[in-house]
């Protein structure tokens, strides 16, 4: 079992090898590099765990919505600005991740803290290191692949895909 430890960098993500990826995301703010990182996260066939901390913009929401499991530190504060929300496609990504009502609660907030992120379900409670160890196994990777396909398939199409995944 190996865990790749990276920062919010598309280049590091491309080179990441192992059974799972642990991402440190302190003070994440929008840039083309972050946008590229988030797009690549969404197609990575490996379990990913992110720990977001510090003063962030809405890019933090995109990172948390794109990983297998997201965590935040108690000091996190996410400011939610429309420009970043739109640039990262969060008006579709967050409702898909959380449901429409909870997503709107986040999207219309000026800022969200750790309590709010955990309460809406975007961030997990508990320990990220434990989570990444739990996810660094082949069966978790299969679930990640299945989830990725299910997000863009009908239930029947997703079941047919799952039936072909290696046991």
């Amino acid at each position: 079992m190996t865990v790749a430890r990276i920062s919010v960098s598309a280049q590091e993500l491309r080179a990441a090898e192992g059974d799972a990826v642990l991402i440190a995301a302190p003070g994440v703010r929008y840039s083309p590099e972050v946008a590229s990182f988030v797009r690549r996260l969404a197609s990575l066939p490996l379990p990913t765990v992110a720990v977001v901390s510090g003063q962030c913009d809405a890019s933090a929401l995109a990172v948390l919505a794109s990983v297998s499991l997201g965590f935040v530190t108690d000091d996190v504060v996410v400011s939610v600005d429309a420009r970043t929300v739109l640039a990262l496609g969060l008006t579709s990504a967050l409702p898909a991740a959380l449901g429409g009502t909870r997503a709107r609660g986040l999207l219309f907030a000026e800022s969200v803290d750790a309590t709010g992120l955990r309460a809406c379900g975007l961030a997990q409670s508990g320990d990220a290191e434990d989570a990444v160890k739990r996810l660094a196994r082949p069966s978790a990777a299969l679930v990640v692949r299945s989830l990725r396909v299910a997000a863009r398939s009908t239930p029947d199409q997703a079941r047919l895909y799952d039936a072909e995944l290696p046991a």
Partner: protein
Amino acid sequence: MGKLTISRNDPVAVVTMNSPENRNALSTDVLVELADALDSLDADPEVRAIVLTGGPALFASGADVRQLRDIAPVEYAASARGTSWRRIGALDTVLVAAVAGYALGGGCELALAADLVVAADTAVFGQPEVKLGLVPGAGGTQRWARVAGRYAAAGVVLTGRTVDAFEARELGLVHRIVPAERLVPAAMALAGEIAANGPLAVTAARAAVRRAEELPLSAALEFERQQLLLMLTSDDHVEGITALLDKRPPRFTGQ
């Protein structure tokens, strides 16, 4: 058969394009070799369905652009490319494309020439010819329009953008998406499912479906009706219905 490998598990044959050093580029030599191989399988009555694949990593990256850069129109028109594409389009045997990774330009047109496309979730389709100052020349503009409609086709062909397996499925090109490592087995299973049906009926139904691309509706409906009348003269249809009534699997003879 240098750039292709052919395996048989009758009634299904698998043709694998095998030149990863140039991403399965469809050079003239490869196209001719492919047309020869498919023609040969098409003529074999033991083969009822063919799977065409580039393996679990990539399908085909299109024409060898170096060949196209300096070629004169007259030379291109006289080359074996056009004939090879027509031969591939004229097969009678069911062709299932199993696509992983890139299917671009001629690679995409090859998938479009198939009856059904099984795609890995890694598959990417596109007609990037306009980005090179060219247009698709092996059915890309016409078959995209017939598969996905004129506006969707324009979105793909005029921009040169790529579509992933999921969008290709929404557009009607992809029949089923599977994990890349199960691509060929899944395509073979689909081909086997088709091959288990009445062979005459499959050939006739395939011909009728293909006529939808060529004929006005009234003529195509007449063609379909003629195919049904032809099937009513076959032993296979008697066997198929008898087997259903006897609650047993049919034993088709192709007669």
